[in-house]
């Protein structure tokens, strides 16, 4: 497997505040990678930098070996990077079906179309004619993922998959993610639920205060080790 999306020594700032320090990660073709860490660790910043919504001050973002650091977000979609952003960010005045149409507007050729998305996301199919601002949290998240998927990404960046959702809805969403992985789409997901993250991913990174403090395969990392890295308890243990 070859590395599809990778970063090298990223330093990212929010104004004067440094959000990421020397972050280097990679996602292989078809691989599921989990990104874990406490609130404010820089997970969302990392995802939006990968999608091109944020410009790093130092370091590079590479796509299939090519330097895309300066490429704006709207052009990265064509390469095959899609981000389901923090807070879902649906277009509120558009219906669900219209949101999906916008998602498919610059779609690459691929397995996903509106019909297949409705099959894989029963939550979305049920509300297709509703306005996006009249949806529940779970429906919103399902629509947001479906919308990103319609661009037929090779790597899908998913921010806060299960945040604020009922467990039964989270199970449904993860069921849909299985279908996505079945198509050979790479996933980089931010997940608060450590247990679930370790179950689904091939590899994981733990961010602490903007730095990667732990990386590896979940089978090789002990849960205690991950928890310690998550909360920054390394020195104490």
């Amino acid at each position, binding site marked *: 497997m070859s590395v599809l999306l990778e970063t090298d020594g990223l330093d990212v700032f929010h104004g004067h505040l440094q959000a990421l320090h020397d972050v280097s990660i990679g996602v292989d073709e078809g691989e599921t990678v989990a990104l874990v860490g406490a609130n404010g660790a820089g997970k969302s910043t990392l995802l939006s930098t990968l*999608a091109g919504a944020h410009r790093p001050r130092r370091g590079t973002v590479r796509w299939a070996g090519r330097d895309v650091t300066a490429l704006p977000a*709207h052009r990265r979609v064509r390469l095959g990077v899609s*981000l389901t*952003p923090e807070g879902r960010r649906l277009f509120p*005045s*558009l219906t669900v079906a*219209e949101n999906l149409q916008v998602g498919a507007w610059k779609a690459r050729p691929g397995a996903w179309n509106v019909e297949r998305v409705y099959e894989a996301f029963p939550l979305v199919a049920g509300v297709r004619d509703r306005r996006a601002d009249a949806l529940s949290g779970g429906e919103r998240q399902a629509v947001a993922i479906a919308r990103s998927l319609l661009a037929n990404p090779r790597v899908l960046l998913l921010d806060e998959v299960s945040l604020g959702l009922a467990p039964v809805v989270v199970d449904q969403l993860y069921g849909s993610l299985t279908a996505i992985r079945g198509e050979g789409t790479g996933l980089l997901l931010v997940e608060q639920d450590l247990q679930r993250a370790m179950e689904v991913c091939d590899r994981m990174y733990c961010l602490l205060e903007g730095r990667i403090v732990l990386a590896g395969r979940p089978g090789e990392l002990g849960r205690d080790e991950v928890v310690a890295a998550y909360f920054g308890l390394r020195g104490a243990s």
Partner: protein
Amino acid sequence: MTQALVQGVLVGGQYALFAAGLSLMFGVMRIVNLAHGALAVAGAYLASTAIVTLGVPAPLAIPLALVVMAGAGWGLQQLVLERTMRSGEFTTPLVTFALSVVIGNLLLMVFGSDVRSIALAGLETASVPITSTLSVGWISVLVFVAAVVILGGVQLFLHRTVLGRVVRAAADDGATAALMGVDHRVVFSAVTAFGLVTATVAGIAFGVQSSFDPNTGVLLLLFAFETIVIGGLGSLWGTLVGGIVLGVSQTLAAAVDVQYSLLAGHVVFLAFLFVRPRGIFPGTWQ
């Protein structure tokens, strides 16, 4: 009385045409373009100069003026408004107000303060008889039809086409639209270009029916704002209805005494502000 009513509806078409671009730009980008009136007059000067001074035939000069103004709109968005939109909500009104002053003075410098109008081979005076006692000017019918076609067309485009939905998505949230491959700067530039095209159509139509000078833009902007407020901010059909309400109030008052015409329009506008401040069709597409 009937004559005044019919005239008022047709004048309303003229006002709606002026307000269309303003309403569209506000609806999509939340831009209050205070230079809209001045730009409409600049478009009228452009067409008039091409026809009178350069001798270009009108059927060629008018499309030419529209193309030039579309280009100006594109440039205006890319070079000016793109920046002002990012620097606080008061920056754009201030900058466009300054722009309207600059345009007004440039027109004064180049063309002088003489009043002009645009002649279109007799079309400006030709009229259609409707009944034996009632007839209306061809050009005002044309303008009304143009207003309906432009407002209806924009409405259909925004709600019935994929590209229209992309425009609305960029209007809702440009940064998120970028994640779907939408370059919102291109979308916004196209909207501003189209807004100036409609302003120019309205400016030329005004120049044919009436007369203009470098300061006419200020009055036109006032009518356009009154139209939008009466009709409802961000509603395109509301804009048409608002124009008609304004136009009818003016012509009915004029039927009583011509000097009350403008005053009646302003009074009706103020009445709406008091009684129904969100207009007849409050914001239906945002």
